[in-house]
């Protein structure tokens, strides 16, 4: 620990108080980094240094980097052979947009923004032309209300500085650095992400959104999020955006860890619509104590390849886990998603509902696991995965694993794959709707059980987005 540590900490804290939009670097003006791709130990060190981190985190990063090098790529899942680890930026670029112009944004994306009715300023942000999207006035007072209740909601970098004990009580414990190759990568180079702590008994009634829908901290390549919900508390966190996000960063590897204490409840909603050059490989896991509830609502619309299996470890008696997942795989996309529920204790219950759609040659795979360990008496689980394949070029797979090591349990799993029923189409058309309208209605009806769990703006946009995709696909 450097002699300068206390002083540095102070000035960093001050900095946070003033302007919460920093990327997590102490003083960007001082450090000029030339664009440099690839990853090595030096870069990992540099990231830590630029963030003025304590030795504990620096060592954590370095150990993680070693593990990343050792671990092999997964032999299952989507095709990751085209990821070139040496051709990626591993740290955040300068805050100013590097001269990207509105003209560089692909036309289809611009068209989608128009059709969704997105205001120009937001369009520019989503298109990567503007660096920040702010709504300071509104969200400033919201943050104050939260703080008054004892709720902590800030960026991960800030949290590490301000609340190190709280952070380290769970950081890297729910998703250990050796968990898988991409968790190791994230553990080495993470930057940005959210930290939330909800005190005992506090119920946050407004969904916490990553700073009013969009915030750079939560759209970085390697975000690290940690949410701690103390006994009897409740929080609903929402991230992402249905409108397509155009980014040149091709690898997104986030880690989300959630701790749900006794009798607490957490819902985490994600809608992801990265542009189709992105590899989206995410490790999300929640640890649930006695009678706690964890709900993952996961929407995968974009990216070239997504590999994401939100998990719930039902560690305490009577704990409950739910994973509601909707995936749309269009041209050139492979959505490999699903969920995992691991029952460790008695009377635990879980439910997974997965709805996926493949069209225009896309591939949608459900990959999931229900595991009931010995001793998880009276555990119950139900998994329903339905898939719609809209044309003959597309593909749908289901890879569920059900591992039961306790006899006093109940497990049910059902999956169906089909296309849009001709009778349904005819019925809707006989009521005056054109063929593509009718298709979109059936598709929207298909995913409705999941969509109705989304906050309103998302569900409206999601339906609209799907209608647009269907319009494009029918001649």
């Amino acid at each position, binding site marked *: 620990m450097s002699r300068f540590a206390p002083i540095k900490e102070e000035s960093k804290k001050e900095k946070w108080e003033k302007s919460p939009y920093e990327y997590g670097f102490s003083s960007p003006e001082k450090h000029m980094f030339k664009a440099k791709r690839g990853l090595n130990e030096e870069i990992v060190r540099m990231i830590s240094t630029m963030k003025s981190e304590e030795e504990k985190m620096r060592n954590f990063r370095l150990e993680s980097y070693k593990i990343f090098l050792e671990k092999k790529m997964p032999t299952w899942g989507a095709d990751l052979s085209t990821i070139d680890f040496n051709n990626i930026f591993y740290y955040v670029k300068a805050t100013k947009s590097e001269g990207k112009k509105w003209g560089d944004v692909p036309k289809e994306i611009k068209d989608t923004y128009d059709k969704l009715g997105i205001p120009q300023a937001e369009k520019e942000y989503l298109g990567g032309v503007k660096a920040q999207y702010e709504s300071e006035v509104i969200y400033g007072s919201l943050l104050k209300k939260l703080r008054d209740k004892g709720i902590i909601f800030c960026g991960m970098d800030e949290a590490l500085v301000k609340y190190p004990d709280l952070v380290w009580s769970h950081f890297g414990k729910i998703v250990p650095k050796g968990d898988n190759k991409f968790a190791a990568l994230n553990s080495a180079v993470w930057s940005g992400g959210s930290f939330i702590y909800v005190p005992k008994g506090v119920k946050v009634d407004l969904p916490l959104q990553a700073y009013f829908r969009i915030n750079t901290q939560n759209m970085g390549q390697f975000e690290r999020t940690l949410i701690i919900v103390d006994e009897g508390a409740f929080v609903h966190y929402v991230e992402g955006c249905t409108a397509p996000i155009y980014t040149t960063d091709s690898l997104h590897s986030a880690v989300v860890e959630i701790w749900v204490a006794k009798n607490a409840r957490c819902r985490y909603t994600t809608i992801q619509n990265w542009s189709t050059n992105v590899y989206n490989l995410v490790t999300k896991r929640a640890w649930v104590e006695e009678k706690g509830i964890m709900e993952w609502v996961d929407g995968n619309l974009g990216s070239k390849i997504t590999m994401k299996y939100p998990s719930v470890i039902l560690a305490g008696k009577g704990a409950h886990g739910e994973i509601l997942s909707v995936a749309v795989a269009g041209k050139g996309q492979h959505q490999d998603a699903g969920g995992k529920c691991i029952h460790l204790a008695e009377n635990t219950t879980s439910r997974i509902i997965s709805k996926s759609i493949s069209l225009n040659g896309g591939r949608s795979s459900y990959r999931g696991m229900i595991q009931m360990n010995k001793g998880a008496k009276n555990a119950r689980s139900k998994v329903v995965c339905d898939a719609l394949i809209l044309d003959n070029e*597309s*593909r749908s797979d289901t*890879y569920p694993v059900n*591992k039961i090591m306790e006899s006093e*349990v109940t497990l049910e799993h059902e999956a169906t794959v089909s296309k849009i029923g001709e009778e349904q189409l005819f019925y809707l058309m006989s009521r005056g709707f054109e063929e593509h309208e009718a298709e979109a209605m059936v598709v929207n009806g298909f995913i409705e059980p999941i969509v109705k769990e989304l906050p309103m703006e998302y569900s409206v946009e999601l339906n609209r987005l799907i209608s647009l995709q269907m319009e494009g696909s029918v001649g």
Partner: protein
Amino acid sequence: MRYFDVLDRMGQSKDIKKFLVVKSGESIDIETVMQFKAPKTRGNTLIKAVVMPGGKLNLKGVIKIDKGAELVEAFLRQSVLLIGENSMATAIPELEIESNEVRASHAAAIGRVDEEQLFYLMSRGLSQDEAVKSIIKAFLNE
């Protein structure tokens, strides 16, 4: 044990049914694969297993529908009854579908003896042992 079935002639129809009891101390692995290559084919796979105390069962069932195999109907059902202590089962029903003119579904259920049924039979005079045996018989006959 691996069972591999291919439906490569148009109009073909296959029904596979397997019933088994995994005895105490046994460990059994079964994989069934049904591949649909031709159009207008129909395949139904039903696996019913009872795992006795100390038994272990690994069930894998794959339905694969190739591109061009249109108007296919494919069903897979894996049903496992776990009895007593230390019985374990893994059920992996997989689907790989590359054609959209299909109706494919699968179901897997792993459970224990229904207490209500047990009580009912015992209240008719059967001993617990007899009752469990009857339920197992009914399960396999269903």
